[in-house]
């Protein structure tokens, strides 16, 4: 990796950002169908007890994703 791209996994708890794009296509199909779209505001609400899942607020709705999935979503 030469360019440091910020992903959802780099957010601090309570921090919000706009989604830029998806790195992984298979993940993207699933995320899109859950209503996670580019240009949407996403907030990291908290991390799971063991830290490997994220509790996100997308728009006014909540979803949970793994950190490995979060690293495929880049931020603006």
């Amino acid at each position, binding site marked *: 990796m030469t360019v440091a791209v910020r992903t959802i996994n780099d957010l601090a708890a309570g921090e919000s950002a706009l989604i830029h794009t998806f790195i992984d*296509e*298979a993940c993207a*199909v699933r995320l899109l169908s859950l*209503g996670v779209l580019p240009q949407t505001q996403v907030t990291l609400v908290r991390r*799971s007890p063991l830290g*490997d*899942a994220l*509790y996100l607020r997308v728009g006014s709705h*909540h979803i949970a994703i793994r950190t490995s999935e979060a690293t495929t979503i880049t931020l603006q």
Partner: protein
Amino acid sequence: MGNPNSGKSTLFNLLTGLRQKISNYPGVTVEKKTGTANIGDNLDVDIIDFPGLYSLYPTSSEEKLVVKILADKANDIYPDLIIYVADGTNLERHMLLASQLLDLHIPMIFAINMADLIAEEKREINVQALAEFLSVPVIPISSRSNLNIDVLKAEVALFHESETSRYLRSEAVATIQPKLYELISIVKERHGMVNDYRALLYAHHGNMLPHLTAAERILLAMEVKVADFASLPNQVEETMERYQKFSSVAKKVISKPLDYKQTWTDRIDDIVTHRVIGPLLFFGVMLLIFQAMFTFATYPMDWIESGFAAAGSGLRSFMPEAWYTDLLVDGVLAGLGGVLVFIPQIAILFLLISILEETGYMSRAVYMFDGLMQRFGLSGRSIVSLVSSGACAIPAIISARTIGNWKERLNTILVSPLISCSARIPVYTVLVGFVVPDTKVWGIFNGQGLAFMGLYLLGIVGALGSALLFKKLLKADGESYLMLELPQYKPPIWKNAFITMKDKVSEFVVGAGKIIISISIVLWFLASYGPSEAMRVATADGESQATELGLSGTEREDLIAGKKIEASYAGHVGKFIEPAIRPLGFDWKIGIALMTSFAAREVFVGTMATIYSIGSSDDEMTVRDRMATQINPATGAKVYNPATALSLLIFYVFAMQCMSTLAVTKQETGSWKWPAVQFFYMGALAYFGSLLAYQLCS
């Protein structure tokens, strides 16, 4: 149809009431819920509650099933009309699947659910704008507060009389890319279809569509290759295009709330999904569930047991003393009692689990435990299967179907039966008293209750340990996802919870019930009959011994009965396997019960009842009391000493003694390999666990 959490099943329950039927989709064991709804003036319609899905590009096998049905226009249950249920509070996302269904050219009524919640938030629904875009009837409803359900029914009734075009969108929402024109037209022509989007779905999913012949699939695969068609990028592009088409409409239809305000859900989740409090709370909830099962279920279980005992002696008092009376009382009635006695526990557990599902708590549990489960080679969704296994491994194994990743799903299926199920409860109940006295610990806990907890923990440790082993042994296959919706907390709908409870109970009675009753009858036969010469000798021997000892009445009959069962077919089998189980502290009578309970664990108690009640005039004695009086004829010591009882308990924690579970595993994995693996690894755990326990304790 609709996304998960759209309130689709609530609407289904509302429309059909109790006029519904649970069966399986042919070839797979995805639950198929069908029902009949009266939509006015003696007009009945058949409704199917399809599994919830987010799009026609599925990840789990439940979602895949829906796609398979919708791709095949000739399918028996291909819908005539779709009632599409969308969550109005998240309309944009719920429009995705609807737009795909419209492009398949299936007639649709679009129901905006949760209209009451939207009104509460002082937001308005512009029905007209949505109806214009979709060009199908749009009705704001609430399946929770019964809003506009009559309007929906009237619209369904109208479908019979009006032109189908009223329920169709003539133009596709998503366009086919020019570079795919040729591929689409080839597929359309060969399969004799007119719909572009259906042809596109064939190109995407050709390999998984069961209605296509092998030759058709090979042709499709070749054409897809020639056209240089990349499925995944195309799915992304198509989905993005759809959102672009309807995003602005969705925003216009439901006025946005001004600012994001902290909701109840946020406040609850601050505690419930807290990194420390959350997991503690989860185990607290689980503990409460099990305590509820044991305290509340005891009373109805006692009534059922004493009811059957009374019915048995009642029948005996007016029926002649003959083989068919024995068959009826000791075979059929005993077996039936053994089935019905589980109903209270299954009912309580599934009521509570479905309430947790209904409120939205279960998905929080999945979120919290996904990481932990991943370490064991399981999915966060496995937690639901593992918890359900507490009632019965059969629904638990079936519920593993929501796990998209095959390896995680298989692992969940293999280890779920190690979690102590309700069928083990009667075995534990009978035996635990021999190990732990019925006393209070620290003034509040019941000693036997704690022992129960210990047995459950042993099962959980066994399951997780085995999962870890399978994580290493099983081959990885495909991607594993969490990506899970955390729905808003909602008060549970009792009707839904009760329907789930009723379904689980009837599945158990119909499924396991037949096996239990037939085994009970076979057992009665094995225990009542034997080689005639051996039986005659045993009777004579018993009589002379009883006279020698000066016994009379019940004692005399019991002694003769003991001799007779030893000579019966059951005694022969028990004695044959005795050398193998002697090191575990088991005698041939336990051997008989181990053998028969391979059919189903709960048969253990029925077997004991049958074995010990034969020849006895005292039918009311409980199995446990009868077992407590058993003396080893060789040593004069009690048969059920703490070491034997503990060894037997451990055997029942681990052993795969359930034909039905093996059958479900075969069905879910599609091969006998996995039930065989399950049977042998659990058997090995049981044998060596019991051996260790008995040798250490005696």
